[in-house]
């Protein structure tokens, strides 16, 4: 496997905690969530544009607290209410729901009230904008039992922000917004990712001018940046196999970045 193939795979968009890169802005958000989870709050809202690192942040919280607290991570949204409550039932009662049965919501509320003060269950809900208003209403009612604490992650769009505020405005105790990173952090992010996999030589060739170009194309969005770097190294990989003379090992290619941007539709 060529080093460019290795570099390419580093930038596959995933929420793998091993691939988590500690950045100042992400660290600040992490600490906020960590403190909020420790306090007796009903709900914590985490929102931001897609690709700002919400999912990996939730995953990191889960990984770090899963042995300390009764915390559960719902990474994929359950569009079907029955599916959601089946999962919820299991994490709350620690038992599987019998087949061909469904959860009685009133009974579930009563159960949650019964465990109040005895247990503190934390549910991390990713992609919460996918839930309908009825589901969100039931989540609100569950949080009112004070036995269940929800950390809800949502995309920041005008509509979704409105929903979040309308449904949870009285119950949200902490709101954390994630934003795109600046150039400096983007540079650190790319370099750290490569250095983590011992690709020092490649990291060394990526200079500020390349970062500026990547930043202008991706606006500091992690997901876009990952896509861009993945595509760039894919092009590198192609030339490394077929036309090695076109690659200068000592100089990172702006041309390949631009080609990747054309391929991804950032440049038309």
């Amino acid at each position, binding site marked *: 496997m060529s080093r460019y193939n290795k570099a390419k795979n580093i930038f596959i968009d995933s929420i793998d905690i091993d691939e988590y890169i500690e950045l100042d802005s992400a660290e600040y958000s992490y600490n906020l969530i960590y403190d909020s989870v420790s306090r007796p709050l009903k709900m914590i809202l985490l929102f931001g544009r897609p690709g700002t690192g919400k999912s990996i942040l939730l995953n990191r919280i889960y990984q770090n607290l899963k042995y300390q607290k009764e915390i559960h991570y719902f990474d994929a949204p359950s569009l079907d209410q029955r599916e959601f409550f089946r999962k919820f039932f299991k994490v709350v009662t620690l038992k599987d729901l019998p087949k061909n049965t469904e959860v009685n919501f009133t009974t579930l509320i009563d159960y949650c009230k019964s465990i109040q003060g005895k247990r503190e269950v934390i549910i991390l809900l990713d992609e919460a904008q996918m839930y309908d208003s009825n589901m969100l209403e039931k989540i609100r009612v569950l949080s009112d039992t004070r036995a269940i604490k929800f950390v809800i992650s949502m995309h920041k769009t005008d509509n979704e922000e409105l929903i979040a505020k309308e449904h949870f405005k009285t119950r949200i105790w902490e709101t954390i917004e994630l934003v795109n990173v600046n150039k400096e952090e983007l540079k650190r992010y790319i370099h750290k990712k490569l250095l983590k996999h011992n690709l020092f030589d490649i990291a060394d060739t990526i200079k500020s001018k390349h970062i500026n170009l990547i930043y202008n194309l991706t606006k500091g969005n992690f997901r876009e940046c990952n896509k861009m770097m993945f595509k760039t190294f894919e*092009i590198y990989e192609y030339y490394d196999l*077929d036309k090695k003379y076109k690659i200068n090992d000592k100089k990172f290619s702006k041309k390949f970045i*631009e*080609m990747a941007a*054309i*391929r991804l539709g950032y440049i038309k």
Partner: protein
Amino acid sequence: MNSMKELEKKWFRYKLKQSIPWFILIFYLILIGLYINYKIIVDKFIINQYNQLSKEYFTQKDISLEIHPKISTIIDENKSNILIIKDFNKTIIDINTSNDIFEINDTLYEENISEPFFSEISPVIDIQVPKVKTQDEILEEEIEKRHEKHYIYIKKSSKEYKDVEKRFSLSQDPEDALFLARIYYEKKKYKKAEEWAFIANELNDDLEESWLIYAKAKNARGQKVKAIHILKSYLKKTNSLRARKLLEEFRRN
């Protein structure tokens, strides 16, 4: 493989599109550069042409005055009253090169020291003395004014001289005019006589009788002064005895 080639083509198109503003900018800069360069060349050319022309036309010459002969005679007569400036050219050069006086001796001034600012101007001296006209001159002028007329008046006065007048209109014979002047004078038609005498004189001013009839007709019409001057001017020309006698006669009367 093919997709990568296609991607490269797209990238080339993108770079070309991106570099168009730079090409335009470079093109304009080249144009501006060429314009400035051209202007400098043209300016140099004009300056050279000017310098050449100024060398041709403004060559250094000694300043000398050509004195009109009339003035020279006056100068000779009044030498004691004329102030003569010696070493005129030397004085000018001394003043121009004196750095003590002109501390700001700029380059333009220095450049032009070698090439004179002025060319020689030959003096044109024309002294016009207003003339006081004498009576003779006034008379002469009048005659000259009349002489300026290049046409002849022909007037048919009466039936008996009709034939002569008719003939004169065709022949323009001064003798015919003189005949008519004589006849009109005898008939005491002095104005007519004066006119025909004048016509005869116009055609031939050597006809003495035309002068005399003209003077007599003038005298007869009470213009004695004019008549005397006519005779005087004729006498200057011919010194005629008849004219002198007539003049004396006019004076006596």
